């Protein structure tokens, strides 16, 4: 009898806090075209799977009139639930509660659920929608951020960490997403920057909108801070579900395998690539022709489009694909594409995902801007990431493999387990024109018709060296295969690699060219 009363009191208490900042604030949130924090969680998770913790946590700030302020859940919702049956930890900042500002207790709710995720070995998803540090709490807010960053780093490579930016995310707050594995943004809603438009205007007199400075498109296309870009929150939450279904939920597991499916392949794989190495094509067509059900979840679709990375399945198992994209910038390697690929390779390696590399690249992007931007240091990241990776590593050379890029794209010399080449492959120290110009310089200069001689020598070089057979004769290529044999060969190679065991010297950690 008395219990009934207690239960009713609990329900009443919960109902109040679950309202967040109250009806008016919720109205404002909706008017901005945003879902509320609770709606986001409930939409993302399986029905009735969400369980909330720390609902009644309150802040302890006593200054600046905060002592009589009650903030529902201290501005953040934390809990556990499932996505397609798989358990996850989640938190969502509630913008309706004091702008989702981060105070110490707010941060401690987040670090508590992060610690939980790391112990339980389940993914942690953070939905960011916050005005930043709660200024009234001063150093307490900074301490809170620091404690989150520390845990992001500790959990890195152990459990998947996913950040969703669904609102402002400014100043120190941006570093938590930057430390996590994947960042999701939504057009017109996500805003991320270190110094906002106000500061920039005060200091420089430069006027720029939040959207142009750090909107979703900017981070998806220009900075590379965002990995997935969506036009609506619903689309974004669907993308997260798809990603979660493809990746392992800790570094001690493999990704869940599903029923194998043949590719739907609308295009014959032999007809995708033009024979002329100067002509472009979309390398994603090759990936579609190889993967189960022709499905491919592309990561960083808009940024550094000259390299394509993402997840697909082969025989039901998740594979990471890295492929040069001749459709953009001729598929060259440069600072951004090296960074993009290197981090993805490390992700795959940390989470036991085999890597398939599809190679067709003419070399590194020439230019003062690239050299001064440190293409040496950036390019080296790729060498490091491939060399360091111990997961099964398979390369298929589709067409061009010239110079340093040949080495970088998971060559035999960096430890590839299987090196395959199509008969269209050209493996050479550089492009035929450049090579002929150097090797036959004297003959060309002494010829009566220099151009004719150059053409002849280029042709000679192409016939002798621009093919896969020189490399194959040295054992650097294991097999020259027909395009139609590729999927079968990949499936076999992965089967053979199932128990791959590779040793690395014991060390605290390496020193990659960050």
């Amino acid at each position, binding site marked *: 009898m008395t219990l009934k009363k207690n239960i009713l009191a609990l329900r009443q208490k919960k109902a109040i806090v679950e309202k967040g900042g109250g009806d008016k604030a919720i109205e404002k949130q909706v008017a901005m075209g945003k879902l509320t924090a609770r709606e986001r969680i409930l939409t993302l998770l399986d029905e009735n799977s969400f369980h909330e913790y720390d609902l009644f946590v309150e802040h302890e700030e006593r200054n600046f009139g905060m002592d009589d302020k009650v903030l529902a859940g201290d501005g953040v919702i934390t809990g556990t639930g499932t996505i397609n049956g798989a358990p996850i930890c989640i938190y969502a900042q509630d913008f309706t509660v004091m702008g989702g500002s981060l105070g110490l207790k707010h941060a401690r709710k987040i670090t508590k659920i992060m610690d939980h995720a790391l112990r339980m070995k389940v993914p942690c998803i953070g939905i960011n929608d916050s005005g930043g540090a709660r200024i009234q709490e001063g150093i307490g807010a900074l301490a809170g951020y620091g404690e989150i960053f520390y845990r992001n780093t500790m959990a890195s490579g152990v459990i998947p960490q996913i950040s969703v930016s669904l609102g402002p995310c400014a100043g120190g707050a941006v570093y938590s997403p930057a430390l996590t594995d994947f960042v999701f943004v939504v057009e017109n809603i996500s805003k991320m920057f270190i110094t906002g438009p106000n500061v920039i205007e005060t200091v*420089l007199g430069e006027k720029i909108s939040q959207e142009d400075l750090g909107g979703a498109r900017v981070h998806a296309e220009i900075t590379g801070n965002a990995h997935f870009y969506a036009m609506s929150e619903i689309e974004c939450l669907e993308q997260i579900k798809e990603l979660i279904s493809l990746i392992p939920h800790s570094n001690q597991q493999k990704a869940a395998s599903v029923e194998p499916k043949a590719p739907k392949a609308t295009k014959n794989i032999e007809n995708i690539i033009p024979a002329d190495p100067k002509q472009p094509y979309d390398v994603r067509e090759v990936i579609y022709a190889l993967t189960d059900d022709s499905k491919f979840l592309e990561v960083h679709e808009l940024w550094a489009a000259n390299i394509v990375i993402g997840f697909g399945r082969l025989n039901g198992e998740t594979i990471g694909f890295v492929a040069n994209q001749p459709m953009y*910038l001729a598929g060259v390697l440069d600072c951004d594409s090296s960074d993009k690929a290197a981090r993805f390779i490390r992700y795959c390696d940390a989470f036991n995902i085999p890597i398939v590399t599809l190679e067709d690249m003419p070399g590194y992007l020439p230019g003062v801007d690239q050299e001064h931007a440190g293409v040496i240091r950036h390019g080296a990241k790729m060498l490091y990431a491939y060399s360091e990776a111990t997961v099964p590593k398979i390369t298929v050379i589709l067409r061009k493999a010239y110079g340093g890029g040949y080495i970088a794209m998971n060559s035999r010399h960096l430890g590839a387990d299987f090196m395959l080449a199509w008969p269209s492959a050209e493996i050479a120290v550089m492009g035929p024109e*450049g090579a002929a110009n150097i090797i036959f310089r004297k003959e060309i200069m002494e010829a009566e018709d220099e151009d004719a001689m150059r053409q002849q020598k280029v042709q000679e070089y192409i016939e002798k060296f621009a093919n896969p057979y020189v490399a194959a004769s040295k054992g650097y290529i294991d097999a020259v295969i027909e395009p139609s044999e590729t999927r079968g060969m990949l499936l076999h190679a992965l089967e053979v690699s199932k128990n791959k065991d590779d040793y690395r010297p014991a060390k605290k950690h390496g020193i990659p060219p960050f």
Partner: protein
Amino acid sequence: MENEKQELVDFAVTARKYKTLLTKKYLNRKPWVNPSPYEIQSIIPGTILEVFVAEGEVYKEGAPLLILEAMKMQNRIQMPFTARIKKINVEVGSRIPKDSLMIELESVDEIEA
């Protein structure tokens, strides 16, 4: 990606040109220009607090040119070598971005020769 809106261009990588599309970031990159020693540019965005020199006058190497306040730090910009001030593009209170041309110099010898 919005392939259909763009046209394939010739893109030179070493001795060969490839047909390809360009990315927005590549199109917006800043072309490199050889920096001239006669152009005093801002190395950090900030505000001009003081200008010590006048156009047409000759100043010795090390003479203070102006104070550029940036990130609450007052940076004293000096003459890199003895030269004449050809043009001053800033005034006290100017808020300038990085790589902004603040002062143009001209060689003393050239003028006198």
